[in-house]
């Protein structure tokens, strides 16, 4: 009951903060008085309303969504598998270390430009999203697996638990918070990097192409309307995926 009240208060506070930010934005746009430099939120909302009914809107959304999601799932799978391998084999961790450190530290724009030479523009966002997600998931899952208590491993050894059961009963609950946090971070990164790759690669029919065109024609309302679309897609995808993950973990532990 008390928790509900606190939650409600938090939501009301957040809504008020958003309203205040929109008001400030509107006032700043009016003060500047030039749509090209700073468009008001009302103009963005109007453009967004028109945009969703335009031919090609859903196609652009699906194009980018499918590629970024594919990159995310590839990065997630590779991160989990290789972190598992590294947790058990120190050699694998050492072998992977230079690649992962490079991926983590090289700016995403450099990767996009390098990859443009190797890949066609339409698959660029898949690869870039994968590249951004993979190290986040890898390092988090590896840290989770390494944090498994020595005492629990001793108990598993004494009771001669087979490796599949160790993975399920020992490592899964240990990795869960690390994996959830990694996914939450990685989803945001995947969208940002994926759209950046599209803006640079300009594949036909992508959200990135629409953003690029808006920039070329100095169409600020369109640019911000598409930005709002990206934020909404990113938040919805994150909420849906994280909800499924949490429910999956709950179900597994209820066995």
């Amino acid at each position, binding site marked *: 009951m008390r928790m509900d009240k606190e939650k409600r208060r938090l939501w009301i506070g957040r809504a008020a903060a958003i309203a205040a930010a929109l008001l400030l934005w509107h006032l700043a746009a009016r003060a500047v008085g030039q749509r090209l430099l700073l468009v008001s939120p009302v103009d963005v909302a109007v453009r967004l309303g028109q945009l969703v009914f335009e031919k090609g809107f859903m196609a652009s959304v699906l194009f980018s969504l499918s590629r970024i999601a594919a990159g995310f799932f590839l990065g997630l799978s590779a991160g989990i598998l290789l972190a598992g391998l590294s947790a058990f084999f120190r050699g694998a961790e050492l072998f992977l270390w230079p690649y992962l450190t490079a991926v983590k530290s090289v700016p995403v724009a450099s990767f996009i430009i390098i990859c443009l030479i190797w890949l066609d523009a339409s698959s660029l966002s898949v690869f870039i999203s994968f590249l951004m997600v993979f190290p986040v998931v890898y390092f988090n899952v590896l840290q989770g697996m390494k944090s498994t208590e020595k005492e629990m491993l*001793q*108990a598993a050894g*004494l*009771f*001669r638990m087979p490796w599949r059961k160790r993975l399920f*009963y020992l490592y899964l*609950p240990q990795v869960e918070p690390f994996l959830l946090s990694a996914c939450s971070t990685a989803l945001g990164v995947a969208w940002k990097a994926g759209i950046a790759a599209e803006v640079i690669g300009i594949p036909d029919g992508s959200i990135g192409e629409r953003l690029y065109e808006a920039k070329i024609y100095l169409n600020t309302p369109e640019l911000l309307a598409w930005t709002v679309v990206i934020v909404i897609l990113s938040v919805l995808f994150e909420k849906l995926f994280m909800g499924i993950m949490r429910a999956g973990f709950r179900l597994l*532990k209820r*066995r």
Partner: protein
Amino acid sequence: MEDIRCEGIFKSFGGEAVFEDFSACFPAGRLSVIMGESGCGKTTLLNMLMGFEKPDRGKVLGVPEKKSAVFQEDRLFEAFRPLANLKAVLGKRFSDGRLKEELLKLGIGDGDLMKPVSDFSGGMKRRLAIARAVLYGGEALFLDEPFKGLDAETKEAAMDYVRCSAAGKTVILVTHDKREAELMRTGALVSMKKPASLLYKTGTAD
């Protein structure tokens, strides 16, 4: 089945000797007790017997390949329910009905079976750890203060459960409680003192 023996054990931590030329014999098929004040090395001795720690010098002999234990810190799979905890180590050796019966003997009823172990009280976790160790089987059973935190009634039930289920096995019980030691012991009594010097006597109770 042979006796479990420690011969000429030396063990120190950070330069402080905990065991100096320590020897003891825990007779096969009996319940032996290790007693002593806190920090005198009882759990270290148990860890050496279970193979988790190696003595600096000396030998541990006669420990069977398949053994079971109740650890000082429960070491349960807290995110999972009690039956899952048992099945994690027992596999499909027992039916759900049989496992429920065993838990009921220790006062864990149907109402508790739907909760994750993390929601259990300390006493319930202890009893679940006892059930897991006893049902796992093996020729030797190591019990590190297994009845700690249990109230009088559940303690009696847990002691009876261990006595009945572990009959014929080599059991080594670590405890502070003299009464517990007297009621349970059928084998050796090892009394330990701090620091470094170890007073021990061995022999069977009967």
